[in-house]
Each structure stands twice: as structure tokens, then as C-alpha cells.
């Protein structure tokens, strides 16, 4: 197709909308959640000076990584207009399988990881079968799964905690890439990795903007665009600066970054990802558009099982043991992260990035409250309140948008 067909109206629209405030308001839904995150961080940093300390930031990453991993898969399931309540139990089961392989049978660490992932895939296929082929709602199937896999985890572990893993398996969630490039009390390798990531991010954003301009699309005003990139880069480098003085770059952070990138692309740029949105938005219309609804549903659940297993490995590694009660209630954290991050309760809407920020808001809240010594009972009350507020804000936003009709 020739380039001369570039439509004029879109270009005109771009030039009529220059005000920064206007731009921000138009993107309130995306920006609102980031703003909320910023406020939470600033508030806790102000209350407690150790909140932004290198040790605490590192701890934050290690402590909540598995919820973020779960939230990736959960977001896909939620956009599909399903839900998976079994992920906490699957964490226990996959961790138990890994522990049996390493601690009881003496297999090397990678066998344990593969074993756990395989179990996760099987669990996902099991649930996917009931949801996609038989047609039972995911809520029911995973409610059953929650019980079944918790029981299987207990049986596998004989009702006791099994560990330690030690060695490489332990390092998955507790290891750091550190000192590869030297540095005096400040890990240069960490800074270099983050620097490269920031440059890569800026480059990718620039390329995407150029592509959009080439196609005559509306883009963010240049000052906003540059400001966004600078802001992201500064924040990332500040974070890197802090953690580089502690123990360097956590392995788990790399794993998480890779997962977020890969799944972000899957959701936005592959037919599979777009089909998930289409099914969640209107399953009948999707079916009549040639979307293989059963197939997509099945693989979403398989994927959820896989990511639960990844989280199970990370969690058992972090605890250096598999416990029968591991992962209890994690499904709720993951689901809450998605909804705080703007996913629709009826499916069809939601983004991985949003779910990650939603998860981070909860992580920061928990961590901050722990630092402050807030009592155990208060924390879930606050979390629950945040969830309600976030969804209420989202509804308010939708009504505001609909009011223009």
C-alpha cells in the first residue's frame, strides 16, 4: 500500500491537542494509577527514612516478586473474563515437588525446576480442560483446584515443611549478580545493566513514536514524550543507585523484567493476546470472527499453571523450603493487583503494566506498614480499602468518559 494514503484528519487532531494538562487528563486512567503509586512511595519515604534504603528496596523486590509473577498470568485470565483461585495452592504443590526432587531424592536443581514447571503445566492443562472443553466457569474449576492442589501439596510433603534446598536452587530467589565489573561499594554491573535498559527503553519508545508519526498518528507532545522518558530513566537509575550499594542486582529482578517484557508483547502484539481481549470483550462476537475461543481459553489456563509454577519455584527458593501452607492467599493478592491496575471485573480490559503497578502499590503498602510496625490486623484492612478505592476510582473514570456521550 502506498504511503500517500496517510489520512489527514489524524494529523490535524494531533495538532489541536497540545495542552499538557489536557493530555494528562485524557490519559487519567493510565496516569492515575502511576500517580497513586508515586504518592504511596513518597508518603512512606517521608514517614520512614529507611523505606528507600538499599536493603529495604532490595527486600521489596525479593519479597513480592512471586505475586507480580502470578499477576501476569492472572491478568490474562481476568481479561479473558475468567478467574483462577487455585494459584496459591499450585505454588505449594510445585514447591513441594521441587523440594521432594532436591531435598529428598537428591536431584540437581535444574531437574527440580523442570519438574515443578511440568507439574504447573499439567495443572494448567487440567484446569484448562474443565474450563475450555467442558465449559465450567473458571471460578468453580479453580475453587475445586484450590482444594485439590492444596491437598496434593500436603500429601506430597507429608504435612511437614521440607528443605533446605541450598545451592543453585536457593540462589534463584536469593542470588545477586554482583561484582562482575567491580566498583567500590557500588556495584558497577548493576548500574550498567540499568543504564543499558534505560537507553534501550528510550530507543524503543523513540522508534515506536517515529513509526506512529510515519503513519500520521496522534502522538504525545514532544515535551511530554521526552519528560516521560527522562522521568522513567531517572527513577530507574535512582533505584539502581540505591540497590547497587547493597548486594547488587537480584537474579529475580532479571527474571521478572524478562517475563513482563515477553508477556507485554504477547498481549499487545500477537494474535493470541488480541484474541484474549476480543473474547473478554464479547465472546460471541469473537467466536463469529474466527477466534478459537476454546483454544485460547485452554492456553491461558495452561499459562497460568506455568507462571504459578515459576512463582512456586521462586517462593520455595526464597523460603529455602517447601511448606504445606505456602502461597496461602496469594491468589487474592494477584487478583487485587490486576483490579487495582485497571483490569475490568467483566473482562476485556486490562494491561500487564497496570497489573504490575497495582501489585507494586500493594507491595509498597505492606512493606511500608511493616516498617512502621503497623499491627498485623490493620494491614489487610488497609489493603482491602485500597482495592475498593482503586476500583471505585476506575468506575468514576468510566462514568466521566461516558458522560461525554
Amino acid at each position: 500500500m502506498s504511503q500517500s494514503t496517510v489520512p489527514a484528519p489524524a494529523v490535524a487532531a494531533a495538532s489541536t491537542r497540545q495542552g499538557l494538562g489536557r493530555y494528562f487528563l485524557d490519559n487519567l486512567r493510565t496516569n492515575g494509577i502511576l500517580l497513586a503509586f508515586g504518592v504511596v512511595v513518597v508518603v512512606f519515604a517521608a514517614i520512614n527514612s529507611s523505606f528507600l534504603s538499599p536493603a529495604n528496596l532490595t527486600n521489596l523486590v525479593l519479597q513480592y516478586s512471586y505475586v507480580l509473577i502470578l499477576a501476569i498470568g492472572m491478568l490474562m485470565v481476568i481479561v479473558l473474563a475468567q478467574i483462577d483461585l487455585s494459584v496459591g495452592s499450585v505454588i505449594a504443590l510445585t514447591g513441594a515437588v521441587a523440594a521432594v526432587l532436591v531435598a529428598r531424592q537428591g536431584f540437581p536443581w535444574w531437574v527440580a525446576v523442570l519438574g515443578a514447571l511440568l507439574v504447573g503445566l499439567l495443572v494448567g492443562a487440567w484446569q484448562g480442560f474443565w474450563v475450555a472443553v467442558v465449559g465450567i466457569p473458571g471460578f468453580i474449576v479453580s475453587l475445586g483446584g484450590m482444594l485439590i492442589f492444596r491437598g496434593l501439596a500436603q500429601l506430597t510433603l507429608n504435612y511437614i515443611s521440607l528443605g533446605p534446598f541450598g545451592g543453585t536452587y536457593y540462589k534463584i530467589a536469593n542470588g545477586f549478580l554482583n561484582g562482575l565489573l567491580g566498583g567500590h561499594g557500588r556495584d558497577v554491573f548493576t548500574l550498567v545493566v540499568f543504564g543499558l535498559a534505560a537507553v534501550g527503553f528510550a530507543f524503543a519508545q523513540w522508534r515506536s513514536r517515529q513509526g506512529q508519526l510515519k503513519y500520521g498518528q496522534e502522538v504525545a507532545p514532544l515535551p511530554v514524550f521526552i519528560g516521560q522518558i527522562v522521568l522513567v530513566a531517572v527513577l530507574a537509575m535512582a533505584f539502581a543507585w540505591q540497590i547497587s550499594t547493597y548486594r547488587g542486582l537480584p537474579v529475580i529482578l532479571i527474571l521478572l523484567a524478562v517475563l513482563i517484557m515477553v508477556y507485554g508483547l504477547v498481549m499487545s502484539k500477537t494474535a493470541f493476546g488480541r484474541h484474549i481481549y476480543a473474547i473478554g470483550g464479547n465472546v460471541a462476537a469473537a467466536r463469529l470472527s474466527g477466534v478459537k475461543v476454546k483454544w485460547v481459553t485452554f492456553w491461558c489456563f495452561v499459562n497460568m499453571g506455568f507462571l504459578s509454577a515459576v512463582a512456586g519455584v521462586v517462593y520455595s527458593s526464597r523460603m529455602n523450603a517447601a511448606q504445606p501452607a505456602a502461597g496461602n492467599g496469594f491468589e487474592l493478592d494477584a487478583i487485587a493487583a490486576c483490579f487495582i491496575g485497571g483490569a475490568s471485573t467483566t473482562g476485556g480490559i486490562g494491561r500487564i503494566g497496570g497489573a504490575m503497578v497495582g501489585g507494586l502499590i500493594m507491595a509498597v503498602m505492606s512493606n511500608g506498614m511493616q516498617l512502621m510496625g503497623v499491627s498485623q490486623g490493620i494491614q489487610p484492612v488497609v489493603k482491602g480499602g485500597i482495592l475498593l478505592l482503586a476500583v471505585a476510582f476506575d468506575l468514576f473514570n468510566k462514568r466521566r468518559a461516558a458522560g461525554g456521550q
Partner: protein
Amino acid sequence: MLETDLAPLPSGRPPADGEVAAGPILEMRAITKRFPGVVALRDVNLTVSLGEIHAICGENGAGKSTLMKVLSGVHPAGSYEGQIVFDGHEARFHSINDSERLGIVIIHQELALSPFLSIAENIFLGNERLSQSRLIDWNRTNAEAAALMRRVGLHENPTTPINQIGVGKQQLVEIAKALSKEVKLLILDEPTAALNDTDSAHLLDLMRQLQAQGITCIMISHKLGEIMASADTTTVLRDGQTIETLDMSDPQATQERLIRGMVGRDLEARFPPRQAVIGREVLRVEDWTVHHPTQPGRVIVDHASLNVRAGEVVGIAGLMGAGRTELAMSLFGQSYGRDISGRVFKDGQEVELKTVADAIGHGLAYVSEDRKRYGLNLLATISDNITAAGLGKLMSKLGWINGNEQLKVAEEYRAKLNIRTPSVLYNVNKLSGGNQQKCVLSKWLFTGPDVLILDEPTRGIDVGAKFEIYSLINQLAAEGKAVIVISSELPEIIGLCDRVYTLSFGRITGQVSADQATQESLMERMTEEKETLR
């Protein structure tokens, strides 16, 4: 707090001796309603006389629904400018409850019935018949429901669940429900949009009967034929303004005049002219038989055979329940029914269309009659919807979708089909019905089909957009595509098609060339029953 302020005006009741209906029952004066950035109604005046059937017509987006929302209190007093005088009193409604208390009941296009509750329960929903002990008095509920049902001519058991009766009867339940609220002014929004001709005729009849009982009706409709036949007075709205109010007994009040008022221009003809150039056969269906998906043994499509050639527009005329949609959807990758038998030939080759993907792969496209349920993802953007069935065309070798290319495609279709929107990144639910329909058509055109099956392609869209869609159909045929149009509007079938199949009770009962077809001859074959065939 008293929510309805009643000004002390003299009673507006008509003289009891039944002389010529005296004053107006409703006057809406200089109503202006603004939404952020848009003026939806500008200085609209509407006067409805007691006991008349008053039609309101206008293109989609003309402000008909907004006007009715103002009247019924959905848009509360204070959110608009102007004055409403109902039954001689100035009315300031703050909610639907306020207007219903005074006897204004609105029946929306999308019926608001609870599917698993009985007819009687639905009639008294929110208005339950209670016994002394404040529990539901079932005998009274069912007896009173039966009385109301008799008044609207609904012959069903009051305890039948709503989902077991058809749309036409559900509409009657809505009216019975309105009667139970002692309605004085009944507002019907597109009452016959989802009804077949028999049910429509019954409904219009019923409106006449209600009129005789002193109930005033406001009818919002796209169907000008209905307005001509039923309305006493018609108000035409365009772009949020009153264009004119016509007394329908005046010989000047013609269908052409209504159209002119609605679109602000003369439509030369309702159907654009076309020179058919018909080529080779593209699709042939032989002995197509489909059974009901959940009731084994019930035949829905019965040994139907048909064909369509390149450049040809073929109509399938049938009443609701004749199996039109079922025939189309079963052909389209077995999206409906079970135990499907018969043969399909595409370009002379026999093909198997087991899944929707097969059907799309063989160049079929199916535009559903219900675009909101089966055509669109209302949560997604126009661009996402247009490319939903053809994502494969936007993928790189590695399987990545090119988002820029996607927008370019969407822009092309926006321009080609004249989809009126500021941006293809807008959500599709912000569009009017006609523009949504163009999005669905775009989606299917993007798959590059050879055969387009259009199921009620102009349902619920306004006159101007209809004309655009007819032109598009002509253009597609001129490009050599084979087009099948399913419609229950016979003028549309006759005006648009080259050849017409009639479908009755799942059987093809005839095939006529459109230039020989008359509405009467088609209707006769559409109602031909099985027994007479044997």
C-alpha cells in the same frame, strides 16, 4: 423530601363527555440539554394531545432518546433548560420513579425483563402484590396479571418464565407492566425493531386499542411505513432540533416529507440504482439440513438449496423464526445447530466448513443481525474491531502484529465507508447504530471475502445510513462479490436484490427474480406452511 413539585394549575383532565380531546396532555417547552462539549437538544418543543398516537422520528443521534430521557426523569430536572407541563401541572422529575408515579411509562428498545421470572412476576416487579402479612400474594399476582395480559392480547399462562416466550410477546408483557402502573402516557422506543410483521401489526393494533381506552402513546420509530399507518401526529427531530410537527391526516404529510425533514435533503430514491453484471456461480448449497442445538430431532433448516453468483445480490426473505439466521450461521462454520447435513460448493469445488476459521478461509463473511451481541467488542476501539477477523493480515513473519498498519487499515475503512468518528481509537460503543454497522462491515471487508452474508444489515439504523449501506452493497456487487441479504423488510429485499429466495418454516418455498416480485407474492410464500407443500 418531596421530589415532584406540582404547580397549582387548573386540572388538565379532558371533559368527561368524550368530546374532541381538549388540551394537550404533555407540553415540553424550549428544552435544551447540554452534555460536555455537545448540545444534544436545542430549544425543542413537543406538544402531545390527550389520547393521540404521536410519533417521533429522526435519524440516530437526532436527540429522540435524549428527549425521552428528559421526559422520564432519567436526566433529572435542573440538568436541562426548559419546562415540562404534564396533565396541566408543571413537572419536575428527579428520577424515573417520579415520572412513573404520574403515569408516564417508557418502554425501551432493549426490553427490561428478568428472564427466569414468570410473566406475572415481571409485570409486578418492583410493584408487588402483597397480602396482609406483607408476603407476596401469588393468587392475586397471577389473577391480576392474567387480567392485564387479556387487555394486551397475550394468551399465555402467567406463570410461564419470560425466556420461554418470544420477543413479540415479551413486548406485550412490557405493555402489561405499564398498564399495571396506571399509565397515562406510554412511550415506546422503537417498539417493532425486533418484531416480525405479524407481531408488529398486532402491536400497532394494540396501540389503537389503548388509545380507545384513553391512553396516550408516544412512539419513536424508524419505520416510516408504520408511522404513516398508525400515528395521528408526527414530530420530526434533526440534530437536536424540532423540524416540524405534522398532522398525519393532512395529505401533505407524506413519507417523502418525513424523510426530507429527517435528513434535511430529498432522497432521490430509497435504493440507489444498480446495473447488475452477473458472473459465474460462487457459492452453491445443496440439501442443507440443520437441527436445533438442544432439542434433538427438531429440524430448523429443512433441505434448503440455493446458489449465488459473482456480482449478484440474492435476498432471503423470511419471517422471524423461519430459520434465516440459523441457515446463515450454520453455513458460516457451523456456528449454529447440530447434525448438519448437506453439501457446500465454493467456486465449483465441494468444501467443508467445520469452523468459522474454515469459512473465513474459503472467503465467506457473515454480518450478524445483532451487531452488539455478535458483531462487536463494545469495550474495544473502532480500530481493534475493524481488524478483529483479519489479524493474520497484519502479522509479520515472526507473528508480531504491526499496530501502525492496523491503524492505517482502520483509517482506510473509515474513509471508504464514511464512518463518522473523530478517531479510530475511539471506543466503538460511542458510535451510533449506523456507524457501528459500518464497523462490522469493515471488519468483514478486511477479510477479503468472496461471499458476504448480510443478516438484517440495516436493522435499527437511520435512513441516511441505510442509503449508504445500500450503496455499499451495490458497490461490492459491482466489484464481483456475491452478496446474500437476509431481511424481513420486503421493500428492502425487492429494492436491493436481483433474486429472492423465500424461506418458511426452514424450507425454501420459492425463488423469484426481484423485478417480478411483489411484497404480496413474497409474503404469500413466506407464510406457506409445511402441510400445503405436501
